[in-house]
């Protein structure tokens, strides 16, 4: 026995793992996650075992890689610049109408990239909106320029949304201390604010980059060759689909590397930023500064919101005037609405177990489950399409080109959105609540109905709204997996634009925006009431 000055062991309690009550949730998580992982893994395996088929010329690969890289760098830099500007101006200055500018800066995110491409194409060229002024005729910027413009403007809101919370978390005392030491406003911004924002900026940059390399809609319509466009061409045009598979695997790996880097910066960012409730003074903008700031926000809103809407309305009116047949698209609306709704509900059901095992029921494999969910979410959708098609053709042929498989693919691709909002809800409550209910004599089902689902409810709803919006906009996976003749609004916009039917494309675009409004308003309301 020990004696003398006796030290008492202060080891912390071991993590609550192996809880009996968490087994069901872990089983459900495995049932949801494992099938979702199979197609991408099997595609990679197929590439390894079956070879690469007709080799893609090395020069072509280099060209694709450089094209993708150039676009990614250009879009990331531009979107970060705009996003940092809008976030800083709307959060840290006394600009009039800040709340409205804040909303306007985030709003363009609802415009999918193929719709952005449509508005650029519809605004320029000999018959575009801008040509109504005599003598003005801007050639349509096909290629790099158009893709860069479309993606930058519509990804800047993403940067804005990632940077805003980080800006709010910077301790105002650090900036006050710098001012107290005699630093000018500019110097404070560059040496204090921006440096503390670095993790958020890196994170935002990587997210924008991830979206850029994954984008299919804008690059295909604006005819700029990147990996995604090449994959689609290889896939659609050839009997041997192995080259498309090879490119898909390369792009998947690229996306996962970016995701890995992003998750790492995010986990480190926590050390730099601490939450604070102290009020901060807003920076007073006067005279020229104010005019410049308003000009900047105004032109962004003009380019990202007013121009697109005007172009869409312009083509709709022009087509109706000319007596053009819009084509009945009630069917498309109905299809889009129903697949989006079903996928949103299923995604909520799939998300609940994952959210549970990563919050209340944490265990050895929690991080693995979370990583897997995000990895599936980060895969470029065109590659998911290629993988699911390949897997279906080989193993589950009867499901190939069925609605069921399409919806399941949507659920797998987007459930991460639902998981993340549900985690937020669950984290607000004690992880002992399920045990408390069981201890009070209620069985597992009654506990689920009366405690777990009501508490996860707001997150499940918000998640469903997000998934609904994503499925509504989804193009490449739908293109590859839909049953024959199954046209959604997104498909219709994309194909009509490609074929030059801008009136039809505009009508469908306006319809898509209109049906997106309800879930969008619900989400905004939730943000505001928080």
């Amino acid at each position, binding site marked *: 026995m020990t004696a003398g000055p006796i030290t008492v*062991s202060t080891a912390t309690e*071991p993590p609550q793992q192996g809880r009996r009550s968490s087994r069901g949730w872990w089983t459900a998580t495995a049932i949801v996650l494992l099938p979702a992982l199979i197609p991408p893994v099997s595609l990679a395996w197929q590439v390894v075992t079956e070879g690469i088929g007709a080799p893609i010329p090395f020069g072509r690969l280099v060209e694709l890689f450089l094209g993708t890289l150039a676009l990614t760098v250009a879009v990331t830099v531009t979107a970060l610049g705009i996003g940092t500007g809008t976030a800083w101006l709307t959060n840290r200055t006394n600009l009039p109408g800040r709340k409205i500018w804040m909303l306007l800066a985030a709003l363009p995110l609802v415009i999918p990239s193929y719709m952005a491409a449509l508005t650029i194409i519809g605004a320029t060229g000999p018959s575009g909106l801008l040509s109504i002024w005599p003598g003005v005729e801007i050639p349509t910027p096909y290629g790099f320029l158009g893709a860069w413009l479309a993606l930058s403007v519509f990804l800047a809101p993403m940067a804005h949304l990632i940077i805003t919370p980080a800006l709010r978390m910077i301790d105002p005392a650090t900036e006050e201390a710098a001012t107290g030491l005699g630093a000018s406003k500019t110097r404070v911004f560059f040496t204090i604010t921006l440096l503390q924002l670095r993790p958020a900026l890196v994170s935002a940059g990587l997210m924008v980059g991830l979206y850029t390399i994954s984008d299919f809609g804008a690059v295909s319509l604006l005819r700029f060759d990147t990996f995604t466009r090449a994959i689609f061409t290889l896939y659609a045009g050839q009997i041997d689909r192995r080259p498309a598979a090879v490119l898909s695997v390369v792009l998947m790996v690229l996306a996962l590397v970016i995701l890995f880097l992003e998750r790492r910066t995010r986990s480190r960012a926590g050390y730099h930023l601490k939450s604070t409730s102290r009020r901060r003074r807003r920076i007073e903008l006067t005279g020229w500064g104010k005019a410049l700031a308003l000009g900047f926000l105004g032109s962004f809103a003009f380019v990202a919101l007013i121009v697109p809407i005007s172009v869409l309305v312009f083509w709709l009116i022009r087509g109706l005037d000319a007596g053009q047949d819009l084509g009945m698209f009630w069917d498309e609306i109905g299809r889009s609405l129903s697949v989006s709704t079903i996928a949103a509900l299923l995604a909520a059901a799939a998300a609940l177990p994952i959210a549970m095992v990563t919050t209340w029921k944490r265990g050895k494999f929690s991080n693995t489950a979370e990583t897997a969910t995000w990895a599936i979410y980060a895969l470029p959708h065109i590659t998911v399409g290629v993988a699911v098609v390949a897997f279906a053709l080989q193993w589950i042929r009867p499901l190939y080109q069925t609605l069921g498989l399409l919806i399941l693919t949507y659920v797998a691709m987007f459930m991460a959105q639902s998981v993340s909002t549900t985690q937020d809800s669950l984290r607000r409550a004690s992880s002992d609540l399920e045990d408390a209910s069981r201890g009070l*004599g209620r069985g597992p089902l009654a506990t689920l109905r009366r405690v777990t689902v009501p508490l996860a409810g707001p997150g499940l709803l918000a998640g469903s709204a997000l998934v609904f919006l994503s499925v509504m906009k989804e193009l490449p996976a739908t293109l590859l997996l839909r049953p024959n003749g199954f046209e959604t609004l997104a498909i219709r916009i994309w194909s009509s634009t490609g074929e030059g039917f801008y009136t039809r494309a505009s009508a469908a675009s306006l319809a898509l925006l209109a049906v997106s409004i309800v879930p969008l308003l619900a989400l905004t309301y939730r943000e505001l009431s928080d």
Partner: protein
Amino acid sequence: MNSATDQLTIRARSLTKSYDDAVALDQFSLDVWEGSLLTLLGPSGCGKTTALRVIAGFEEAAGTVDIRGRQVLGPNVFVPPEKRKVGMVFQDYALFPHMTVKANIAYGINKKTTGNRVEEVLDLVGLSRLGNRMPNELSGGQQQRVALARALAPNPDVILLDEPFSNLDASLRDRVRRELRTILTETKTTAVLVTHDQEEALATSDLVAVMYQGRVVQVDAPAKLYTNPADPWIADFLGDADVLPSTGHRGYAESEIGRFKTDLKGRVIIVVRPEDVQISMGEAPNAMVASSEFFGHDQLVTVALASGRRVRSRIGPRPTYEPGEHVRVRAIHAQVFPGQV
């Protein structure tokens, strides 16, 4: 207490459970008698919360648990928590945030009997007027009482309390503790409380079970435990204690501060509590004052013995001693254990 007529509410035998790298329970055995309040006391990480959760049915373990003579855990036996009639008060209270106080309390009772029972329990914990509040509108102390009321409402066979006072301000803690004791006594409820706070354990309980590395090392009434700890580690864990090396010889162990009865032979350890050490000025000084801390109602004087060993003495506010003074030190009570310092 432990007479044959008394009923055993909880009988746990040889509970054993380990996590990946750590042992949580190691042959843990415990008896809890009807109507008594037993405290599981141990340093953090000793497995006391795990023991509570195994008894409640939230976790499994090897071994057996009987509640009121019915086996709820054993080989091929696992009664789920909702069928155990065990009330649990969680460390963070785990009140359902989406339900009112009343709905929280009514959660564990049958609908038919809900009406009266809820009021009754609310009254018992003194919260009759707060029934329609939401949990987040209550203070920490009030939330704690709701958690207790909710656990009491279905008339469980036993109530388990996991560190129930740890989330309260120090100023509130004593009062809430006395209230809890009163309520449990009034309702004749059997309870097991888990804590790492020695004073809390000694002041609240009928019996204290000291846990160390997954097993119970001693069960006794608070006073007995404090004055007759089973080994030097328990002595030190329960309060201040100093140790002196000695040798057992002809029924005694000699030391610089007195000789103490023992049947042990060979090397021994003498454990002495500061309250048992007396200081006096005057003849035959055997120690020198090293330092003293003055608390008002008492003072703690540390003296250095001729051997260089230090012992502490807790005495009243008068007289005071200055460092460097030569004094005579004597222990009126000490415990002797086999072993070596």
